[in-house]
């Protein structure tokens, strides 16, 4: 535990030092980067210790603040969140060490590292805090640190707007959490987690508060609106951290609250499943409609959070109906997907950052042919794209498989369940997951295909060049990790077992333990077949090399059916690629399509473009906000400048009070 505290001190210290080194941005960047990596490694060490020994660590330090105490603790649930945070922060820091100084003005570098380290430290503190007030302070600290990181490029009006939306969303979400923690701590009078109790009958409302409060951070639909704004605005290594791990603290919070609630009603599981399926499908659909690479990735975060939430919902249903394997598979799948999404989403954001760094644009319709110019970025991006689409032998497949298995186990067990809707669940989750996976694959075909394959569509893409060694190395590490998780499948139920036990009610622990043992078998199959697959690929590659050795291989342009003058503009664009699917699902969102279809025998000009604003922002939040503002502006006459009116207010107030209150 002290290792962990030392890590936090390194984060804070490094952050402050790099903030103060205004004279030398290069040195500031170095200090910030080294501190972030060191701090992460220290935190990782203490989390690994907890995971391997299975012993939770606690420490309470002196702190004088009302209702608060500096109580920290790492149990298995915290540890499995500390691991991705530490890993991603370290990798992103290495990437940022090279990316930041070369992409931004030198004046922002010191503050940027300060807030980066602050973000890392507060994220870690959030998952180890054992006091409500400490949790909330760190939670808000995390939001503020990332808010300032989003504002790195603060002179652009879009960035300001994005940052404002982010800040507002975080604040509104936190309001729910305030009430949640105060309700949990009401009976004991203080806010230490160990004395939190759920008053009888209030589990439902507490659960809903947690879903809204933590869901805002995690990006559940419809409170996801800040995500596609804020992530693209931030520097890419920050987007990687925000999207990869910061939003997962919302999942952590939800899980942590479940440990206090005891028996939750079964509708809570259904709620999560529905929210998850909605987030998943709508997230991926919105992603499909985007042309901005980072915005597309941001919507994919909504999608993947949806998958995680489906897992949690399945787990909760398993608990509510006392089907241990279902609970275990659901929760373990969700938790593993937290790690997996952290790995591949960070990888993809780093890749997007590399593309932006190499070409100067993130607009997919202006890219193309980058695989030749940026081979490492392209390859690792492909790995990430396969992983996020849930293809074996990569990590995304493993966690999604666990969730599938969870649902199928539950359905197979239907004799114990008297609910009519049980088959519905199967349709909803299995169908939903399949749809999400399919659409994600389509979306990444579009993203990867249009950005990296084909010919450059603009001069920017033409000029593209590979990024520096540190940036490449961090992407390669993450890509390797994506394989590693899949190839070591059977160990994960052990790793997540104790965390699942923590979430399950005490009466249920034995059965859960048994179910964990059972869940190893499918993973073993996955693991073995993955190894086999890789071995086969390796073998084929060797065969190819053997066959080609000694022969001359020519590189020539792709055969274009003999057409004389192909230009890059003839390529399929991202908009056109997505168009059929967009039209199919147009009832869910309102794409603004501008098209000039070719007409006549000799069509001269034709174009097709589509733009898809966020439906929830445009049709839910903005109308509400403008209605409030409208009402407020209508009431301005109350303060219309006449002294007489003001005195009248006072006179009426006292008269009304006299007549009302004295009697």
């Amino acid at each position, binding site marked *: 535990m002290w290792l962990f505290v030392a890590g936090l001190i390194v984060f804070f210290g490094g952050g402050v030092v790099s903030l103060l080194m205004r004279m030398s941005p290069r040195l500031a960047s170095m200090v910030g980067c080294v501190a972030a990596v060191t701090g992460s490694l220290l935190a990782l060490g203490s989390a690994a210790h907890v995971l391997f020994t299975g012993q939770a660590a606690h420490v309470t330090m002196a702190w004088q603040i009302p209702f608060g105490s500096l109580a920290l603790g790492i149990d298995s649930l915290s540890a499995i969140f500390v691991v991705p945070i530490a890993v991603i922060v370290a990798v992103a820091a290495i990437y940022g060490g090279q990316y930041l100084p070369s992409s931004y003005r030198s004046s922002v570098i010191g503050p940027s590292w300060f807030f980066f380290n602050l973000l890392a430290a507060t994220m870690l503190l959030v998952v180890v805090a054992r006091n409500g007030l400490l949790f909330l302070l760190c939670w808000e600290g995390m939001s503020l640190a990332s808010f300032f990181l989003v504002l790195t490029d603060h002179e652009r009006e879009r960035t300001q707007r994005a*940052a404002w939306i982010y800040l507002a969303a975080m604040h509104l979400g936190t309001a729910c959490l305030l*009430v949640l923690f105060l309700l949990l701590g009401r009976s004991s009078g203080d806010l230490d987690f160990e004395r939190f109790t759920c008053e009888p009958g209030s589990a439902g409302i507490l659960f809903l508060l947690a879903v809204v409060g933590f869901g805002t951070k995690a990006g559940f639909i419809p409170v996801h609106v800040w995500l596609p704004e804020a992530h693209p605005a931030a520097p890419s290594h920050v987007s990687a951290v925000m999207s990869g791990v910061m939003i997962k603290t919302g999942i952590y919070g939800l899980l942590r609250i479940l440990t206090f609630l005891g028996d939750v009603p079964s509708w809570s599981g259904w709620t999560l499943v529905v929210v998850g399926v909605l987030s998943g499908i709508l997230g991926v659909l919105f992603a499909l409609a985007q042309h901005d690479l980072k915005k597309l990735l941001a919507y994919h975060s909504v999608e993947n959070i949806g998958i995680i939430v489906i897992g949690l919902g399945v787990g909760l249903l398993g608990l509510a109906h006392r089907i241990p394997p279902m609970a275990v598979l659901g929760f373990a799948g969700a938790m593993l997907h937290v790690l997996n999404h952290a790995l591949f989403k960070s990888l993809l954001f780093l890749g997007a950052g590399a593309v932006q760094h190499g070409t100067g644009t993130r607009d997919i319709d202006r890219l193309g042919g980058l695989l030749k110019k940026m081979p490492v970025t392209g390859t690792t991006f492909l790995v990430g794209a396969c992983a996020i689409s849930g293809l074996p032998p990569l990590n995304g497949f493993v966690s999604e498989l666990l969730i599938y298995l969870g649902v199928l186990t539950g359905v197979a067990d239907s004799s114990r369940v008297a609910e009519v809707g049980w088959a519905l669940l199967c349709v909803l989750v299995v169908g939903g997951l399949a749809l999400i996976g399919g659409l994600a694959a389509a979306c990444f075909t579009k993203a990867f295909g249009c950005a990296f394959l084909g010919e450059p569509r603009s001069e920017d893409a033409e000029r593209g060049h590979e990024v520096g060694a540190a940036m490449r190395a961090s992407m390669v590490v993450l890509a390797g990790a994506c394989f590693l998780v899949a190839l070591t499948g059977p160990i994960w139920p052990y790793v997540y077992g104790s965390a699942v036990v923590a979430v399950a009610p005490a009466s249920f622990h034995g059965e859960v333990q048994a179910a964990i043992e059972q869940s190893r078998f499918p993973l073993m199959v996955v693991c073995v077949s993955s190894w086999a697959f890789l071995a086969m690929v390796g073998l084929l590659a060797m065969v190819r090399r053997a066959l080609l050795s000694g022969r001359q291989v020519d590189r020539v342009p792709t055969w274009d059916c003999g057409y004389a003058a192909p230009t890059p503009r003839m390529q399929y664009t991202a908009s056109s690629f997505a168009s059929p699917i967009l039209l199919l699902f147009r009832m869910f969102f309102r794409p603004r399509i501008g098209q000039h279809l070719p007409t006549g025998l000799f069509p001269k000009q034709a174009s097709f473009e589509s733009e898809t604003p966020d439906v929830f922002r445009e049709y839910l939040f903005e109308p509400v906000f403008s209605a409030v503002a409208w009402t407020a502006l209508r009431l301005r006459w109350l*303060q219309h400048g006449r002294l007489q009116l003001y005195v009248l*207010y006072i006179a009426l*107030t006292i008269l009304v009070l*006299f007549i009302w209150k004295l009697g």
Partner: protein
Amino acid sequence: MLWFLVAVPATAALLAFALPWNWGRRLLLVACAACHVGLTAAAVIQRPEPVLNGWIDLDDASLLFLIITSIVFLIASFYTVGYLAREGHRMPTKPGEDAPFVNFPEAVFTGCLLLFLAAMTLVVVSHHWGLMWVAVEATTLVSAPLIYFHRYPRSLEATWKYLVICSVGIALALLGNFFLAVAARTYETSFHLAVADLEHHARQLDPLWLKAAFLLLLVGYGTKMGLAPMHTWLPDAHSEAPTMVSALLSGVLLNCAFLAILRGHALLVKAGLGDFSRELLVLFGLASMTVAAVFIIRQMDYKRLLAYSSVEHMGVLALGVGIGGVAGYGSMLHAVNHSAAKAMLFLAAGNTLAYFHTKSANDVRGVFRVLPVTGILWIVGLLAITGSPPFGTFLSEFAVLKGMVDNNRMLVAVFYLIALATAFVAISATVLPIVFGNAVKDSDHVTADGNSQPFAPIHLLYPPAEPLWSIVPPMLLGIITLIHGLYVPQELSDFLHRAAIATGAE
């Protein structure tokens, strides 16, 4: 000892009227403020004996508000010295208004400022209803010339409204005092309005007269405190007054009026009518928060924005006391934090106004670029005033919320959160563009006559160094509220609890 607290600034004020040298007067201002802080510190170390039959006394609540008054005044006085050095003896013109205006003579300004301190100190230490009334009225009268320091029509209008509205309010409070006296005739035929005396006999007071008296006191002093719907003078006066006067009005004066209401509340609690006053305080608290939120939305004058935010925070204070329990403690803590944060924001706003010469948030962009420290102060202030960690206001607003949840006032809690959230969203929507962005509009922005128009005159693009006097005082205030957000020593907590108990808030 207690006499000195009032007498020192009062004497200094007379001196200030008489002194012929401006610099001597400024020195006197700071020296007197420092002396006042010293006396306050001495009072903290050793609680002085009551004087004048106990009419002037220093209980925990008095001490709390005395400390706030004293420290904020000292910090504002540093700022004042620099401000007067810059604006005192030249004749600045107000853009958009043709005639140049002359400032009030500096002697009158400094003198009134010191008298203001004396009057506020008297409000805080007086433990006699009549004396307190006199002191509150005195604060109105001596602060009127302060608001009219820059002599131009708008500030005159603000002064006039301030005078009339506050005088009417205070007159009602006087009627409240008389009602109190009548309520006390049940046990004594002679006329006694000593606070301790009334509280001692609280149970014997006539409840109906007492209730009526509280209504009048609440509305009367509530006018001064800025509770809606009696708050109407506040945005006008705060937006037109010189910066440090706005800071003092918002950070100190409103608190003094709050203390006066608290005394009434304490009396009702002692008389067993606590529920009556609590319900009213909750009502006015919610009303203030709602009205403030409504006017904060799309508020484009940033000084008025801050003024409405003061109304909102006065609502929080009233609400905290009305809820009682731990919320009362939160209310005390909030008084401290709000004073520091709001005074700091007004000083930052003053720096902005001095540079951009406009109070319209539409025309101010990129403060961070041209006035980096002021920009940071704005951001810190924004977070502090909207109750974000790591600032003290988060803790105090959290404590108020905890009081609501603990007392199972969930409807009030929901209302409170909605009002706070609305204010947060609206304030940040106005302040963020002020701070960030570019000081000069993009060249593609073209005005109606076809010329691109920079936000600031060209000579302003080369920033003058921000003088120390303009940034150190607000920084000090920011540090105070930051410390309170991360570390509240047990002694301070106990002290605040005692103050809350002394005023019936807990």
